[in-house]
């Protein structure tokens, strides 16, 4: 075997029988990576680290939490007051969920801008969308566990959505609830699934990385690595770059955890759940707001639910909707404009999802929803016909080795 030569004899002995060290050397050390990745490529490994932080803090929280409607709220407050550093662990976990979505949303939009979903990385992309769906289910169930007012009423609203499914809808809702309303059985199964799903996510993340390592990372130029001159080993170049990115991330994360720990939560969730009192506005966590806006934009309940799921479903077929052979948005003048419009549309929908469904908010939600689907279903397939892409650089190393660095020089040289 043409593996690395390990100096430690114990490592050699183990590696001969169980080649884990060779595997790690291949995939984490010499793994050839395009040399021109920018900082937007940090968010993949960052998402992985946040997932680990969430799992570790979550396991500790589960040691102190009581999944029962009469004790859940109290047990969370016991964690906040009496468990050593319980407040820290819970604030890291609760805000960590929000930051997980921030990081993953940036990761997704990076993939969209640079066309990382295109051949041969379609399955890599699809596995990513599966992870997003699993994250949403996990986050939703996690938010129910403190059993505050927003936990209870959020759970009631969201689980009720499934009742619109023809024929089996009511049966599914009863199954989700474990009864005929959101109650103790609901809390118990949500706790169980909230513990389980993160490990399913880890499994899909492993597949995501296997698929990634098949062809390696895409890059800001969107052109293939042509040889050794285009790539550098992952270690130490990208390990240190990811570490630096992690440092920046942790600093921002710490600022929120220590100084604004409840800024992304809702005051109503510090009121114990009460099935007899409905909060004035039932608002989901911020990371669900764009989808919530789409749900409420459509007057028909069934169509609204379908549109909400379709908003994520459309991402599954994105590799086949965008027919342009050019990956990177840098070389697609029209696509670039529409990419930013889509991003603005998503930001607007996030804002609208948090507003009451009345007046101008409804109209804007409808326009935003319409534009979202217009972008994916009509604009992207059509764009490849009308758009004249800029000429691509011949290789990754050429512009990098030239006078300056990055794609701007490449454009100048080729035009």
């Amino acid at each position, binding site marked *: 075997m043409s593996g690395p030569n390990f100096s430690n004899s114990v490592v050699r002995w183990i590696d001969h029988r169980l080649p884990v060290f060779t595997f790690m050397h291949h995939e984490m050390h010499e793994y050839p990576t395009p*040399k021109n990745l*920018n*900082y937007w490529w940090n968010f993949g490994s960052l998402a992985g680290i946040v997932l680990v932080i969430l799992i570790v803090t979550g396991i500790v929280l589960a040691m102190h939490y009581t999944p029962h409607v009469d004790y859940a709220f109290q047990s969370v*407050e016991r964690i*906040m*007051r009496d468990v050593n550093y319980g*407040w*820290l662990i819970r*604030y890291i976990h609760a805000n960590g969920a929000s930051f997980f979505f921030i990081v993953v949303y940036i990761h997704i939009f990076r993939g969209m801008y640079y066309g990382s979903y295109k051949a041969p990385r379609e399955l890599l992309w699809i596995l990513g969308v599966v992870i997003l769906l699993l994250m949403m289910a996990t986050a939703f169930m996690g938010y129910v566990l403190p059993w505050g007012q927003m936990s209870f009423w959020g759970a009631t609203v969201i689980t009720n959505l499934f009742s619109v499914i023809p024929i089996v809808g009511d049966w599914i809702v009863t199954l989700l609830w474990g009864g005929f309303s959101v109650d103790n059985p609901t809390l118990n199964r949500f706790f169980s699934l909230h513990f389980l799903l993160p490990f399913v996510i880890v499994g899909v993340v492993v597949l995501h990385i296997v698929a990634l390592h098949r062809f390696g990372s895409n890059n800001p130029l969107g052109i293939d690595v042509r040889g050794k001159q285009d790539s*550098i080993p992952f270690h*130490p*170049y990208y390990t*240190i*770059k990811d*570490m*630096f990115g*992690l*440092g*920046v991330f*942790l*600093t*921002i994360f*710490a*600022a*929120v*955890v*220590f*100084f*604004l*720990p*409840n*800024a992304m939560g809702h*005051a*109503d969730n*510090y*009121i114990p759940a009460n099935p007899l009192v409905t909060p*004035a*506005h039932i608002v989901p966590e911020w990371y669900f707001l764009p989808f919530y806006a789409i749900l409420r934009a459509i007057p028909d309940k069934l169509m609204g639910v379908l549109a909400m799921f379709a908003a994520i479903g459309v991402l599954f077929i994105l590799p086949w909707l965008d027919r342009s052979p050019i990956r990177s948005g840098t070389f697609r003048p029209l696509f670039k404009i529409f990419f930013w419009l889509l991003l603005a549309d998503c930001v607007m929908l996030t804002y609208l999802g948090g507003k009451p469904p009345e007046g101008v908010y409804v109209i804007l939600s409808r326009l935003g929803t319409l534009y979202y689907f217009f972008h994916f279903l009509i604009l992207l397939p059509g764009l490849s016909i009308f758009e004249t892409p800029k000429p691509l650089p011949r290789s990754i190393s050429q512009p*990098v080795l030239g006078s300056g*660095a990055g794609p701007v020089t490449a454009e100048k040289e080729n035009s």
Partner: protein
Amino acid sequence: MRARGLITAAAVIIAVGLTTSPVRASGDGIELPSQDWSFAGVFGTFDRGELQRGFQVYKEVCSGCHSLNYIAFRNLADLGFNELEVKAIAAGYEVQDGPNKEGEMFNRPGLPADRIPAPFPNDNAARASNGGALPPDLSLMVDARPDGANYLYALLTGYDDAPSGMTVAEGMNYNTYFPGHQVAMPPPLFDDGVEYADGTKATAAQQARDITAFLAWTTEPNMEARKEMGVMAILFLLIMTGLLYLSKRKIWADVH
């Protein structure tokens, strides 16, 4: 440099996040006047005198109707009371214990480990004594309302005559800052309603301030530990990130 761009963006996010606007809207869209709180901001701490006065207001006024279920007497040591004082405060309460060997419940003087006893045995008893309205537990009040500290102060000082044309329902009171303006709680604080041991003049506004600070403490008794650790964590992370940036530059020097 892109790195510098990201760092600047991060700094801006933090700066925006930490800056509180002078006037914030409550859940009902009523603007709340903003007060200066000693516990606000990155380096904010509780004022022990304020907390002790606030506890006195809770004990002599609020505790007639409102429970404080998440606070035990031992927690009061945070307010600056020493062990003997905590024991004396606890002993001033009757606490139900049991069952004893004969299977009977019995009352005994409170101990530091006991929680502060609630005024009513259950919600129904509380409603029955308050014209059908349930006085909420106060332990988490500051986090359980948007902009909680300013809201509580505004609510406690916001009783007024109803504007002409508005009829206030039987048993309700007009309040400028309560969502819907009709609150079952009658005005609880009056000038010199309590007599402060430290000689502070007990105006209604002063009492409102003190009880709000006290409830900010009951909401998050660990707030000072959190902020103290936060300052150290951020300093550590800034230095570490700086070193990582320099290492990154050095390692990447031969690539460009």
